[in-house]
Structures are given as structure tokens and as C-alpha cells.
């Protein structure tokens, strides 16, 4: 259970950014996992000088700016377009990011060598990975901060207004364009930060994002589109389900119950609507 909790925290932190972007901009960012990959390389580079926690703090504003630039240059062109255009644009961005990483760092995987990697916290006969525990803790912190920002501040009220009714928000003078830019940047910042945390214990290579992309989407769909805390909770549930079922199922089938849960979640509301008719 504890293992699942930590693993789920990682999943949740990876998916929060995706949830933010979809919730506000209504864009499914297929390049989200590749920004996470960039965050891993960023964390690796900074690990030569800084502690990973410091790297995480540095990564947030850096990736926020990166996200803002990407939004202003690329995403802005598809914000009001069809879903197919958005899909193609973000998929293209994903391919570009992977190939840039391949060109710059090559296909050879790298690992970060920090003292966190080897350190463990003994709990009885079980050892808790310090790296994963830190990831989990920081993920919770970020999630709570973001939730407070959205639900307890004036800026958060503006964001929620934009999400609820974009046209009405425009009418009352909210700069919707600015909200989109900032929140896309925030989503990318979350991905970059999550990458820095993941780099503490996971091998880094240009296509590492593909390993986590499906789970990220599962977290967002299960947690509710645009619901940051929901994504984190969904991640935790997925991690726990995966870990618990790994005790009784072959490891390769441990995501099967998660997919089943996902399908049930999609079917049940549909049936309820059908019965109401």
C-alpha cells in the first residue's frame, strides 16, 4: 500500500500539469510527457551543482517561461481551432521535442547520481525510497498550493470564471488570452518539475515520456478533467491498485485492473444518462 501510495504520488504529479492545461484551455497536450522528459534532463544537468530539491524549485519558473513562450508561438494558433488541429499540433510538438533531445543528448540513457538514489528509510523489514518519498511530498505540496491558488485567491476566481464561461469572462473584462498563456505555462512548469523529481530515481532517455503518457491520461480522466487534486488522487489510486494487484497478478498485467476501472468509469455515467431518458 505504501509503495502504491508513493508510486501514485509520482503519477499524480506527472498528470497535474495535463489536468491544468485541459481544464483551462480545453487542449489535450500530447507533448506533456515530453516536457516531463525535458525536466528530467534539466534536473540531471543541475544535479552537478544543486540538490534535486533546489533543482525542482529552479525548474518551476524556468519551465513556466518555456510554457509561456510555447503558448505564444505555437499553441495560440490552435486554441480556438478543432480538436483535430490541436491533436496534430501537440503531437507534432511531441515529435519535435523527442528528436531535439535525441540530437542533443543521444539515445544513450543517463542516470542521475545523487545520494537520494541509494538512501532508504527503514520501516520494519521494508525500505522506503527517499527519492520517491520526496517526490510524493513535493507533489502533495504543489497540488495543495495550486488548489489554494485556484479556490482561495482572486486570481483563482478569475481562472475559474474563464473555465466556466469564457465568453462571459470576456464580457466582464477578464483578459482571457493572458489566463490561457499563464495557465499553459503553469501546466508545463508542473511537467518540468515532475520530471526533475522523477530523474532522481528513473533512467533518463529521449522517449521516456511514452512510458508515462498513458498513465497520465488515465489520471486526468479518472480524476476529472481540470481537477488538479482529482488527478493527484487518481494517481494515488492507480498506484495503489497497481501495487496491490502486482502481488496476485503477473507484473505485466498490473495495469489491467486500472484500465478496467477506467472503462467502468466511462460506461457507468453513460448508462445513467440512458436510463434517465
Amino acid at each position: 500500500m505504501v509503495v502504491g501510495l508513493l508510486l501514485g504520488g509520482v503519477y499524480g504529479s506527472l498528470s497535474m500539469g495535463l489536468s491544468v492545461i485541459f481544464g483551462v484551455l480545453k487542449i489535450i497536450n500530447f507533448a506533456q510527457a515530453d516536457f516531463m522528459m525535458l525536466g528530467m534532463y534539466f534536473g540531471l544537468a543541475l544535479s552537478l551543482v544543486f540538490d534535486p530539491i533546489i533543482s525542482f524549485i529552479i525548474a518551476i519558473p524556468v519551465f513556466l517561461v518555456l510554457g509561456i513562450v510555447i503558448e505564444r508561438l505555437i499553441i495560440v494558433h490552435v486554441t480556438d481551432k478543432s480538436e483535430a488541429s490541436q491533436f496534430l499540433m501537440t503531437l507534432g510538438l511531441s515529435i519535435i521535442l523527442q528528436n531535439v533531445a535525441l540530437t542533443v543528448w543521444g539515445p544513450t540513457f543517463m542516470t542521475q547520481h545523487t545520494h537520494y538514489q541509494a538512501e532508504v528509510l527503514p520501516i520494519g523489514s521494508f525500505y522506503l525510497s527517499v527519492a520517491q518519498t520526496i517526490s510524493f511530498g513535493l507533489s502533495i505540496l504543489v497540488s495543495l498550493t495550486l488548489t489554494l491558488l485556484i479556490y482561495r485567491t482572486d486570481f483563482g476566481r478569475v481562472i475559474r470564471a474563464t473555465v466556466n464561461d469564457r465568453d462571459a469572462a470576456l464580457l466582464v473584462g477578464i483578459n482571457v488570452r493572458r489566463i490561457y498563456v499563464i495557465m499553459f505555462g503553469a501546466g508545463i512548469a508542473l511537467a518540468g518539475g515532475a520530471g526533475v523529481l522523477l530523474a532522481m530515481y528513473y533512467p533518463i532517455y529521449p522517449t521516456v515520456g511514452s512510458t508515462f503518457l498513458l498513465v497520465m491520461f488515465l489520471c486526468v480522466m479518472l480524476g476529472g478533467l481540470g481537477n488538479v487534486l482529482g488527478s493527484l488522487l487518481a494517481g494515488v489510486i492507480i498506484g495503489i491498485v497497481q501495487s496491490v494487484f502486482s502481488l496476485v497478478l503477473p507484473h505485466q498485467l498490473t495495469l489491467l485492473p486500472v484500465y478496467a476501472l477506467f472503462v467502468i468509469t466511462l460506461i457507468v455515467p453513460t448508462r445513467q444518462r440512458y436510463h434517465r431518458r
Partner: protein
Amino acid sequence: MAVSKSAGRSVAIPVIAAFLIGLIVGAGVMYGVAPSLLGTKPTVPVIQTTTSIPSAAPIEINLAGIYPLTGLYALDGQLVQMGAQLAVNEINAQGGIRALGGARLNLRVVDCGSTVDSAVAATQRLLSQYNISACAECSYSSSLTFAEIPIAMKNHVPWITVSLADTITSQQNPWVFDTSPLGSTMAIVDYNYAMQLAKQLGITPRVGIIASSDPTAQVQLQTLLSIAKNNSMPVVYQDTTAPGITDATTIALQIKAAEVNVLFSTVSSANEIILIINTLAQQGVKLGLFTAAGDSLLIPAIGQALGVKANGLTAVVYNWANTFNINAANRITKALNITFAHSLTLNGYSSVYLLKAAMEYAHSAKGDAIRDALATMTVTGEVGALYPTSTHTLHFVPQGPGMGYRLQGGTALMAQWQNGIPVCIYPSEFATAKLITASFGG
């Protein structure tokens, strides 16, 4: 009279479309795609006489280098490419294929990725784009090779591969030449030697097996289970991972709970191996022996990632620097400025020399002639020792009527990490170093 914009637009679009179509067709004709689409290929001039006829400009012979350069197997593909390209450069510097008037070799490299779809697309693209004479140690993963070899057969291109799965050469495809021992044989060697080592360590083996889901790993898993059963050796832990695992903690905990002290790994992805070993170390799992039937454990990045945790890890491989090919191995490490020649680099290198020998024997660069040469010739001398065989010569034998070929007497070797370099420690006639009994996690 004003001309409407829509009328102008309706004329412009067909003109633009016609121009684009013409451009594409023209490019296709220029690059030889159109002829292959029409069912014909540009032919390579073939010299059939036994004496070489000097020509003003030597012809060029294209070899396919279809390697996974991205994705899960990127590291492995890169290692093969290094060796193959070095051999091509060496052969060209030495004067090329003498029987063909000094014909130069060209290694046409394409990334086959790590999925069957990408491998098929890459293979079809390469074979339609160039007149390929043969494939030099293509792919890596058995699942990718399975997808490629029907295309090889259709195009009459002999396919040299190192894929371990037994079924690679048990299909009706006489164009496949596998330079590795059967995957199941590797597992047998791995088991037998591991039991000897366990005896040396004075431990009563509690065997665990962790496998990945690809065909080779599964064949090796089944072979290990079968041998263990035949030897009344209980397997206290067994599991299969899917590609791209995100966490190995439950695996480590289960291994620890089962008190495994001899762990066999048939996991083929280096990333997963690192994740598993680091997690085993984190969870304080004490193993007497960690051994793998395959070379994924021996890539340089593993040593860099694991550091001292790598010492004592052993792996059964289809090729390694040994007493018979040490000169070639040293040439490779010197030329490429690397610490050691991985088996994939050795095999990439050796496959090109093998193809050179076949072309010299056949006096031809045509796929059919090369295939016939590979199927009948026996290579001796330094080239004959590039792959480890019991006879120290290279001779392929079919695995059945109309089936693929494997090297006669192909011998698996065992290599062990020692102070940052994997060295051959078994069988003794091939060994370049003695076994060390470092215990993992102890």
C-alpha cells in the same frame, strides 16, 4: 468584366496539384522508387569470372543496417552500428571486395525503432530505396526480426541477425542466417554455470526468475523452468514484466520475501535492468548471484549507472572478446576509443566481414549468390574465429528443410563485470579472466 476569386481559385488548385504530383513522380524516378514500384529494380553489375576485372571506378555494394536507434533498444542498435560501420570502413580502406574489382561497401543505416510497425516500415523503405545485397546484423529484438524476415525473403536479401529466439530459424525462410546460439541453449548454459557458481559460493540455491515479455525472454524463461524442474530445483519466485515498467519495488519485495539467492534475469531492456537492480539494492535484497541470459546486462551504460554494484554480475552472451578473437576486439576498442567491445559491436563488425567472405566466395554481390555462399561456405582463419564456435570456423547449417540457418557449433560464453569491464570467464578455452565471486547486495 471582373473575374471572380472562386473561378481563379478553382483553376489554381488543379494546376498546383498537378505540379506537386509531377514533382513527387520526378523525385521517385530520380531516386529509383518508381522502378521498384513497377516491379523492377536497378541491377548491380555482377562479375561472374573468377579473375577480377579492373574497372575505372569500383562499384558500390549496399548493405542494410537496420538498427533500433531510438526507443527501448536504442543503445543496442547504436552498439551494432558502431561495429558494422567500422568493419565497412576497414574493408574499404583495405581495397574493398577484391573478387568484384575492389567494390566498396556502403552501410545504409535506417532506424527501425522499437515497434514492429516501425521496423516493417523502415525495412520496406530501405529495400525499395536502395539495391541492398544483404543485411548486416539487423534489428536486435526478436519481435522486430520476425517482422522483417518475410520482407527479406520477398526481396531475396540474405539477413544476418543475432536475434536469439529459437523460432527465428524454425520458420520456412532460408534467407535468415542467425549468428547466435538458440535462445533456449543460452538459458541452459546460464543455468548450468550458475549452479556451479552457487556451489563455489557454498549456497543452497533458491532460484528466482524475472523475465520480460518479448519472445526471446519467454523462451529462456520456459527453458529455465524446464531445466529447474528436471533437476528438482524449486523456483521460489517467477514474474514477467511488461515493457516500460515504472516501478520495481513490488518485484524487489517479492524477491526478498521469497528469499531468492540466485536470480536469473531474461529482461532485455537495459533501462528496466537498472531500475530492478537499483531497487533490489535499495530494498536490501541479498543475492548470491544475479545472472542474465543475454547481453543487456553488459552494455557500458549499465556499468556507468550501477558503479560498484555491477561487480560480479554475470551474463551469458553469444559473443565476447575471448582468446580467439582478442585481436579483433582490441582493434575495435582502439579504433572506436571505447573501454571494451560489447558483443553487439563485435557482432556488427563480424557480420560485415562474414558478408565480405561470402561475396569473395561467390564473386557476386547479388542477394541470391550471397545467400548460396553463406549456406555452403566454411570460413577459417581470423574471420572464422570472429564468432565463438566449437570448431573455430564459421559454417551455417539449416535448422530444417527450407528453414533458416544457424552457426554450426555456436557456443555461448559467460562474461562478468570486473572493475568496470566485462570479461569472458567461461568456457575455459575462451576465458580471458578468472571468475570473481562478488556477492550482490551482500
